[in-house]
């Protein structure tokens, strides 16, 4: 089978059909005034709104801003999360001293820090990045610690039996064994980074999709507002799909987690 036809075969056609039917139902209920709200546009109106935004050059820069902040924040968060996670996973002392602080901090919903960050850093890109990095660190950190500490005893015995140095054990046994769990953390982190980037743009940094969305709302332009909402969704799906294909390229199938369906 050619790669093209295989890819077509993997598309979930019944799933897409359901989605199309739902959109059709939305269109119909709004057109026939079954749902009659002044600011609820039909999908066709949203599509028109999106086209206007594309033509006026408002959509792409906003998407790019959110994309850029998400990716930069996520990269920084991943480096911190993996580094700190390896340290805490490998050193029982570091683990014992820091876990209480982490448990307490982790219990606070990250979104509650948004106003505080705004107060400290003001309406700025820095404020947005701080929030995005903060929220992205957690899943990576926790999964890295879990992955490292969950390495089967057989592998640790194996390393000792083969007289490996501790560095070799970390490099050849522990880290590779933890990779699948670390990847799960990275993927969760990516999703959270996008969400908090949009939130930070809504209340703090006046840029990107979140800011544009709120501005459209305040200007009473629901078609544009929903166009931004959908753009954020498309951005999320795209990032997730890219991450999955990168991860499956990195890992042989069994360690790559359960068989994924199409998004």
């Amino acid at each position, binding site marked *: 089978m050619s790669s093209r036809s295989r890819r077509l075969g993997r598309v979930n056609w019944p799933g897409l059909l359901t989605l199309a039917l739902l959109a059709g139902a939305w269109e119909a209920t709004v057109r026939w005034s079954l749902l009659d709200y002044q600011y609820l546009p039909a999908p066709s109106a949203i599509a028109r709104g999106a086209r206007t935004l594309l033509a006026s050059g408002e959509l792409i820069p906003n998407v790019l801003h959110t994309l850029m902040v998400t990716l930069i924040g996520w990269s920084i968060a991943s480096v911190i999360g993996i580094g700190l996670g390896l340290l805490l996973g490998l050193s029982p002392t570091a683990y014992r001293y820091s876990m209480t602080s982490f448990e307490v901090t982790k219990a606070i919903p990250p979104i509650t820090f948004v106003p505080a960050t705004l107060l400290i850093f003001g309406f700025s890109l820095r404020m947005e990045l701080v929030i995005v990095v903060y929220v992205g660190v957690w899943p990576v950190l926790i999964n890295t610690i879990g992955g490292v500490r969950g390495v*089967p005893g057989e592998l640790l015995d194996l390393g000792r*039996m083969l007289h490996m140095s501790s560095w070799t054990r970390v490099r050849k046994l522990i880290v590779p064994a933890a*990779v699948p769990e670390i990847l799960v953390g990275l993927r969760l982190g990516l999703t959270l980074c996008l969400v908090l980037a949009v939130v930070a743009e809504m209340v703090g940094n006046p840029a990107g999709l979140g800011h544009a969305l709120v501005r459209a709302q305040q200007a009473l332009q629901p078609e544009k507002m929903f166009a931004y909402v959908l753009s954020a969704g498309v951005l999320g799906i795209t990032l997730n799909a890219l991450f999955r294909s990168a991860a499956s390229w990195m890992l042989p199938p069994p360690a790559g987690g359960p068989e994924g369906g199409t998004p």
Partner: protein
Amino acid sequence: MQASDQPITQDAPTADRTEPQAQVKRKVTFQCRNLTVELGSSEGATCICRSVNFDVREGEFISIMGRSGSGKTTLLRILGGLLAPTPDSSVRYYGERVEGPPPGVITVFQNYAASLLPWRTVEKNVALGLEGKVGREEARERVADALAMVGLGKRAKDYPWRLSGGMQQRVQLARALAMRPSVLLMDEPFGALDAMTKTSLQDELLQVYERTGATVVFVTHDIDEALYLSDRVLVLQGDPSTIGESLPVHCSRPRHQIETKQSEGFLALRRKVYEAIMQRHE
């Protein structure tokens, strides 16, 4: 059940005199004296073995048997230097106190799935212990030899998870053989395999044993397997356990799955081992 206060300490050397192949007294590979093991838990230490005494001689194939929980695996981990006994115990490998895994001693674990690296191909799994220790050319040669010895030469580039359970355990054996070990410690290596695979792996192991001359300490709960493979069977008894019996197996080598297992000597021993395992210390 109450533990016996006076542990039975039948010593290995007495058994050795009756061993048919040991015309010349062979060197002592492992010497365990007054071996006591306590495993700690949150409720304090539990004594697993007490005053265990036995020797393993060079080139010997010895099996350790006993009920589950009698400390078979624990004993093997101690020989492999992966677990420390109480300080007054003495475990020596060629006269040297065992502190950490001794050189030339390789363990084959029961759980092959957890001890093979899924991100490495079969040949790279086998090469793991050689990396950085021998040259590239030699490593390649040793890996090829080891894989040929277990009949997996053609699967070298495959990933272990694409192989059957029996083949995966062969990969683990090949990884051990590539190290050119003087002692193989095997912890119920065929316990998770079906009967057919098990018997063919037993025969392969015996061939490997003949060819390499390695000393083998084999833990199993299968009496037939222990007798079929070994020169001597140690039976752990009691709680905490100690060596209750040390039974030499006088069946000639090479052995045969049907003939050996139906011979009178084998059947008599089978009964003896069974009784020894089932015996309770009141």
